[in-house]
């Protein structure tokens, strides 16, 4: 059984729900129920029953609340009557109250070139020219030349353009042209494409030409020829048995899908396409939980199938952003932890591409309201993507206006699922669209900056942070060594050591080797930083060289570095040191700490004490150290 509306949620018993809804009195109430049931996965039989449930409400004079009335005419060369219930019900899902008109079978040309009083009385706002390749096929010999083919295609397309112009002239309707679905079997095999006169090559050329002139003429496409080539998009839509039985281009099995393709386009014409994609983070944009696994533990990027699949989904999301879809994040996470995740080197989607970023422990329905308010758009503009079925259910129940696609369990299928759901169907693409993503992101950056200026100290104070420093001993050794060998970003020198080497350094009484833990009101963040400072034979004995300083990005932006320096300076002073010498050794991954030492008040150390390329050296006099502001209590182990 083809699952053609796979992005819709499964209803526990849709048949029973329809039966119950039929007993409700009041056509408006039944219509409202039909509109909500239209949002569940349904075959053509269930769709037909929902259509009957909605019928009286749709035919009534009163405009149904929450639905936009739209008149759509289907001018078709094949049987479409069996598709009408699916178009109307998909319309309900897309927030349209559709009135449909169908010209008599095979009369589409006469309706436009001659006169059709019934169509005139209907006054269509959208006209769909639903044509197929069986209708007036291009009659060319198999050995037709390129020129013969080009001439025949031009003639056919000229005929179409005449119809388009008449439709617009007479009805001021938006014209939608259906591309021609390939139904002819191949004649030569793969060689079809190399023979201009083969049915396959002819049709492909014709569709290409239709697409090109349609944009020139302001005509939209119901691009069935493209849709049938998409994975999971209804295997050709048709069935030769149904064609011979009833001239159905689209089998009843695929009626719900066809109906949705028409309805989403009509909704786009009515300005009802969604505007904003709201994304969960953990296991939606990357594998794993950033708060538990840390920036180095999440799965993202090259090297692992699952990491590549998440990166591929991010690339698709980023492309939607550049198309003008507004991107937002709604995640149950610590905000700083979630924000810091975007410094992951394999992150394809940039933090700057996200217009609204809400990460906290509140319920997602409330956060979606906040995102809509912040972006100044309606809830009915949002699409919410979350891997967690429970979160999806809650949002569907609390905020029925928000579109919540039923994601497949495998992230590799996320992009195709989101694409086939058609929430962002476009009727144009302008320079403004391309610029929109950027302008939202800039606004958000400014807002965030002003928040930092006013609220950051209060926020940091509210975290009740405590830094606990422990001299590296046998207990800390394995974790410290692990962190030394996997931290790439916040790592001043990126020196890798074995456990034995770390133990040698740590057991030297002249050395400062500290394992640092951060505890805040949400709990223990675990080992988050390591500092090793040692005497160096090339330096005077009263100066201590900071051999290693690294930190987990989980705790970025919390002034942990400032507090760590306090601890290190104290420990160095106890060993009789008068100055600390810091080194920044640049690698492809650690640019984020290039300004680490000057930020902490170190001054340039002009003569390099250790001959190393790509390095800058910094100096801090312990008795003249500027006091650094932070909001972290230094705790005892």
């Amino acid at each position, binding site marked *: 059984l083809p699952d053609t509306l796979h992005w819709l949620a499964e209803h526990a018993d849709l048949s029973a729900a*329809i039966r119950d809804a039929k007993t409700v009195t009041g056509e408006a109430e039944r219509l409202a129920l039909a509109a909500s049931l239209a949002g569940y996965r349904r*075959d*053509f*039989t*269930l769709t037909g029953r929902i259509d009957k449930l909605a019928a009286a409400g749709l035919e009534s004079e009163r405009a149904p609340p929450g639905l936009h009335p739209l008149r759509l005419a289907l001018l078709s060369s094949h049987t479409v009557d069996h598709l009408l219930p699916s178009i109307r019900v998909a319309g309900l899902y897309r927030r349209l109250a559709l009135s449909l008109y169908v010209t008599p079978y095979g009369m589409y040309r006469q309706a436009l070139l001659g006169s059709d009083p019934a169509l005139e009385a209907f006054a269509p706002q959208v006209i769909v020219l639903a044509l197929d390749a069986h209708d007036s096929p291009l009659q060319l010999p198999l050995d037709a030349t390129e020129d013969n083919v080009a001439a025949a295609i031009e003639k056919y397309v000229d005929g179409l353009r005449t119809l388009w112009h008449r439709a617009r002239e007479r009805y001021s309707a938006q014209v939608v042209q259906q591309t021609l679905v390939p139904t002819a079997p191949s004649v030569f095999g793969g060689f079809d494409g190399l023979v201009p006169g083969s049915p396959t090559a002819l049709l492909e050329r014709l569709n290409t030409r239709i697409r090109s002139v349609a944009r020139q003429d302001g005509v939209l496409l119901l691009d069935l020829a493209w849709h049938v080539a998409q994975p999971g998009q209804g295997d050709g839509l048709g069935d030769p048995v*149904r064609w*011979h*039985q009833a001239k*159905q281009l689209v089998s009843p*099995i695929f009626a719900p899908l066809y109906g949705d393709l028409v309805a989403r386009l009509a909704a786009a014409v009515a300005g009802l396409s969604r505007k904003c994609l709201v994304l969960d983070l953990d296991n939606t944009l990357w594998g794993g939980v950033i708060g538990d696994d840390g920036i180095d533990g999440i799965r993202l990027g090259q090297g692992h199938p699952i990491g590549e699949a998440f990166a591929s989904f991010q690339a698709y999301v980023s492309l939607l952003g550049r198309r003008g879809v507004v991107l937002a994040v709604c995640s149950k996470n610590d905000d700083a932890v979630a924000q810091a995740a975007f410094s992951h080197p394999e992150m394809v989607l940039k933090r700057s591409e996200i217009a609204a970023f809400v990460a906290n422990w509140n319920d997602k329905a409330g956060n979606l309201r906040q995102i809509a308010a912040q972006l100044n758009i309606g809830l009915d503009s949002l699409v919410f993507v979350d891997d967690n079925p429970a979160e999806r259910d809650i949002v569907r129940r609390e905020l029925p206006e928000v579109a919540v696609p039923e994601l497949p369990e495998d992230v590799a299928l996320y992009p195709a699922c989101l694409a086939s759901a058609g929430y962002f169907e476009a009727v144009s693409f302008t320079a403004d669209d391309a610029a929109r993503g950027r302008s939202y992101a800039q606004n958000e950056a400014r807002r965030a900056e002003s928040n930092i200026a006013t609220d950051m100290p209060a926020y940091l104070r509210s975290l009740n942070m405590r830094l606990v420093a422990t001299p590296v001993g046998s207990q800390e050794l394995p974790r410290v060594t692990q962190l030394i060998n996997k931290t790439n970003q916040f790592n001043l020198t990126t020196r890798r050591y074995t456990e034995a080497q770390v133990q040698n350094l740590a057991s030297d009484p002249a050395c400062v080797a500290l394992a640092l833990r951060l505890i805040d009101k949400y709990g223990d963040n675990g080992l988050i930083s390591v500092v090793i400072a040692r005497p160096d034979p090339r330096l005077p004995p009263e100066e201590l060289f900071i051999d290693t300083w690294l930190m987990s990005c989980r705790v970025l932006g919390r002034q942990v570095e400032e507090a760590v320096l306090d601890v290190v300076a104290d420990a160095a002073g106890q060993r009789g040191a008068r100055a600390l010498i810091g080194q920044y050794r640049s690698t492809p991954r650690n640019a984020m700490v290039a300004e680490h030492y000057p930020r902490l008040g170190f001054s340039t150390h002009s003569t390099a004490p250790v001959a190393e390329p790509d390095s800058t050296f910094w100096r801090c006099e312990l008795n003249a150290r500027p006091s650094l502001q932070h909001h972290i209590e230094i705790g005892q182990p």
Partner: protein
Amino acid sequence: MNEQDVMGTLTQVFRDVFDDDDIVLSPSTTAQDVEGWDSQEHVNLVVAAEMRFGIRFRTAELESLHTVGEFARLIHAKLAASA
């Protein structure tokens, strides 16, 4: 599935397609006896029955499906052949 089971399931197919739980079928029931059973709904019945029973009617068989009894016999024969 025996012929009686086939009739029972086929009745449910008819009730779903016509959205009418009061439909009662007998082997002699024809399009004249069921309101709305026109050529379009006939195709829907054929396809809904194919989906429900997991079978396919051949093009040549479509012309023989005039009565509910003919429907049921053909379905039963196909199920028996594939069992």
